[in-house]
């Protein structure tokens, strides 16, 4: 049995190492060419919406093309589940290899853009020690946020002036913005999420 596993693993390794080589040779080519390829139909970058970061910069989602994205929707004044979603994101980032993290971004999208101003997102990032390039905090307008949630299959509803009820889903997108994995629930096993990130960094 163990032997089987070993064999399987080595096959996997063989497989991936080949891929790795290919990848390296591709990398030397100009990046622009890769981006010129048409977006896959299922790419989240098809959304025309624009967003503001915690630094107050305006961006289109498509500008994130070329990196694996781990995304979650939260709001900063949330006291119940969000701290745990933040912790889940932190754990995933910790467990993903350093190599893979170079090509991965962890993105928080606010479901409460009226309250979550860029300044507030910045403060939140600092409080949670996520104030560097690896982490991105986005806000958009109400319509675009609703649309984005529809793509992620995240449901949310304002239940009081301060609070929302929302799905706890962490999503992984490949470098072309195609949804490749979703993890639902709090503190659930993140092995597959990490695998998804590692795998799509290579692809």
């Amino acid at each position: 049995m163990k032997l089987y596993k070993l064999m399987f693993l080595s096959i996997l390794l063989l497989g991936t190492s080949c891929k790795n080589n290919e990848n390296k040779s591709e990398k030397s080519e100009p990046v622009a060419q890769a981006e010129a390829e048409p977006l896959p139909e299922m790419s989240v970058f098809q959304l025309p919406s624009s967003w503001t970061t915690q630094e107050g910069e305006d961006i289109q989602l498509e500008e994130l093309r070329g990196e694996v994205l781990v995304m979650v929707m939260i709001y900063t004044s949330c006291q119940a589940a969000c701290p745990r979603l933040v912790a889940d994101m932190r754990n995933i980032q910790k467990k993903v290899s350093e190599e893979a993290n170079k090509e991965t971004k962890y993105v928080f999208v606010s479901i409460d853009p009226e309250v979550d101003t860029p300044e507030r997102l910045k403060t939140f990032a600092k409080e949670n020690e996520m104030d560097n390039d690896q982490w991105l905090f986005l806000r958009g307008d109400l319509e675009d946020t609703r649309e984005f949630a529809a793509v992620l299959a995240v449901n949310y509803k304002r239940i009081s002036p301060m609070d929302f009820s929302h799905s706890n889903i962490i999503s992984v997108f490949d470098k072309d913005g195609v949804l490749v994995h979703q993890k639902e629930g709090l503190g659930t096993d993140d092995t597959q999420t990490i695998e998804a990130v590692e795998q799509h960094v290579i692809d």
Partner: protein
Amino acid sequence: MYKLILSGVCFLIMASGFSQASEMAEIEGGTYIPLYGNDSLPVSVENFKIDKYPVTNKEYLKFVVENPKWKKSEVKALFADGRYLNHWKNDTELKSDELENAPVTNVSWFAARAYCKWKGKRLPTLDEWEYVAMADKETADARKKDGYNEFILSWYERPKSFHQEIGSTYENYWGVYDMHGMVWEWTADFNSVIISGETRRDENQDNNLFCGSAAIGSSDLMNYAAFMRYAFRSSVKGNYSIRNLGFRCAQDTNEEENSANEAL
């Protein structure tokens, strides 16, 4: 003389607006207690306008012709799944046994939204839709009446009800038709419903899937009829195109229909 001409013009406008499709009903805002809400607190709804009828195949065809990116053959999978306009033969023709004046179904939320935008309108919010849907023929809120719930329940059991021309069901208190008894309808924030598909668990307050769920509950569990509507909404995603799911548009009261049909 001048006055006469003016009123003549008015008459003309009214007459042209009579093609039933673009007719909207004025809804006087108010408050209501939704089935799902915040501790059964009343929710207020502003004045608004809503289409009297669901959007038909015929109307949708016009939209598709003017906005080719929403053609069956052109639409991106992110915005509409493989069943998009499945009951159409091709980009511009219905299958032979389909009705032009039946509500258009097999349209995704993204598509419905784009259509309303093109009309200078928007999708109704879930609260707006539910607010209008509470009415029967005589009363604005008929939810406690037996006949009201029975009508909805019996629709659940009637197969292929999408195969009807618009206006076939009753005109409600607001002058709006077909809110029940024809097809499900998209709302702008359909994804604000928090039901996991595991009802027994939704009634449990310790729910890991949703944040803050303790405050969300059903205000009237006996209201099976509406309960199932919420369950349906929670089962769909934005790009789903479903045979029993259509839509109608809404508008804020102060806005006029965009006659120019701004292209998208």
